């Protein structure tokens, strides 16, 4: 299934393979976008408070297998948009399609890695990873097998029977990642997944995420506050405007893959960061009024 997709994508790539430096992940391989959001709008209407328009006129396209990051001022609706994609929030307007089909609710082709991990404290690591499979009705023996594989993949073997409170932040998020991968979704939604981790754990998790993404061939939508993180991981970075969130600009990251930590020390990388920063800066000023 996956191999067929891959060959299909290679054929449809407009560039010759030699000239294409996104050897595995060029979003242009698929001429039709895998995820397509058009004119998405969402307004929160809390009781006894003024309504907040989180998203308005948001357009976005994601290619199959692409690693796409969303950055933007805090409160610009990045997380809201991920929750809309996940199917937990219904937009007031607009159209979101995945592989041509309209998203109306949660589905097995999407899974989220949550910022605050969202592990069930009464379940062991193994049982947490099994959650999605369990809800899907997969028989117990297959669940165990699949989950054990993923626990190994994220480097947590030996911790299958630990409870979340016995794990460090980095380990918890590995469980979160394994749980999201367990149901073998095509799309991985990641909502500031490493924001709660310390800097070194974060660096390590980024590398591991890149490796896993490379092997598992998922489409990733990654929300982050970190320009560096976005530049390092992504094929493209989308900068959103201050609330209500819209796409302000799309920045292609022309760095070769596989990427390593040293790449972050190069001048090219700094140029990319500067580009993203300059785009983002205007929005930060618009939001806070500082530096205007």
């Amino acid at each position, binding site marked *: 299934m996956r191999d067929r997709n891959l060959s299909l994508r290679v054929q449809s790539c407009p560039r010759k393979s030699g000239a294409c430096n996104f050897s595995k992940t060029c979003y242009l391989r698929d001429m039709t976008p895998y995820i397509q959001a058009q004119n998405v709008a969402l307004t929160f209407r809390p009781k006894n408070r003024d309504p907040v328009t989180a998203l308005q006129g948001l357009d976005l396209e994601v290619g199959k297998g692409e690693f796409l990051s969303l950055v933007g001022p805090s409160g610009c609706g990045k997380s809201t948009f991920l929750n809309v994609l996940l199917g937990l929030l219904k937009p007031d307007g607009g159209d979101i399609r995945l592989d041509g089909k309209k998203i109306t609710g*949660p589905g097995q082709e999407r*899974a*989220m890695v*949550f910022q605050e991990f969202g592990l*069930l*404290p*009464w379940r062991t690591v193994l049982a947490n990873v099994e*959650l999605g499979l369990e*809800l*899907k009705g997969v028989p117990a023996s297959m669940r165990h097998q699949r989950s054990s594989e993923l626990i190994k993949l994220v480097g947590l073997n030996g911790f299958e029977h630990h409870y979340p409170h016995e794990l460090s932040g980095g380990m918890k998020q590995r469980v979160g990642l394994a749980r999201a991968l367990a149901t073998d979704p095509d799309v991985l939604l990641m909502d500031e997944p490493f924001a709660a981790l310390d800097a070194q754990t974060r660096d390590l998790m980024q590398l591991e995420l890149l490796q896993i993404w490379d092997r598992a061939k998922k489409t990733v939508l990654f929300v982050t506050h970190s320009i560096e993180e976005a530049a390092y991981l992504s094929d493209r970075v989308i900068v959103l405007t201050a609330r209500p969130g819209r796409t302000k600009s799309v920045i292609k990251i022309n760095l070769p893959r596989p990427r390593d930590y040293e790449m972050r020390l190069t001048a090219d990388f700094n140029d990319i960061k500067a580009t993203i920063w300059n785009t983002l800066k205007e929005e930060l000023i618009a939001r806070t009024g500082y530096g205007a």
Partner: protein
Amino acid sequence: MALKEIYTEYQRPILGLASVAGLLLAWELVLTYLIPVNPFFFTKPSLIATAFREQVLGGRLSHDLIISSRAFLWGFSCAIAVGIPVGVLMGWRRRAEYTLDPFLTALYASPLIALAPLIIVVFGVGLVAKSVLVFLLAVFPFIFNAFAGVRSTDRLLINVVRSFGGKERDLYFKVILPSTLPYLIAGSRIALGRGLVGVIVGEFFAASEGIGFAIARFGDTYQLPEMFAGISVLMIIAVVVTEGMRKLEAVLAPWRVGQEAR
């Protein structure tokens, strides 16, 4: 050195038992040597122990206990069976909360034991009236704690289960109930104390057997050691069951072990 290690290991039971033994000893010594007591008005541990032994050997005690615990178990089981679903429903469905809240708050806040005479008039002397009394007293901690537990359920975890395609049923069984469980265990400790009050008071008012009846009768006839024997039995039962619940919590909610702040 070895003694010290044993002490550190078993600090809790050692200190607990020592304080109880110290109190009993002081009671005994004071009444034996300092204040010669009139046995008509007060008693001391050695006399209570003798009375206790006689009651156990005579079979009277076990008979009373069986009678009382039957009423307790009926009332308490019904309290669990009714209290938890009602509390969970109130916590999850706003309409249920708003509808039931005035009654429950009024009933919980008022001394329900005042209803004992009425209940005895309606249900007669015996098992049913006592069970109803236990139920009325024990059901509220279950309702309110189940309610509080559901309300404190982490919204994120609900979203997690929803995002993996979980239905309403999955939310109840995979998130709401497990996260409510520690509240229910805490609630059952409160319910236990209230339920015991229900049995005993029921038997004070109208009964011909049972541990509460025995205590009341011994009190009426100034048989203080026998009366204290009955009271001690109640205390021992309360302590044993409370400890049992602590153990039960460790088994049912192992993820909470080791989370204490101390």
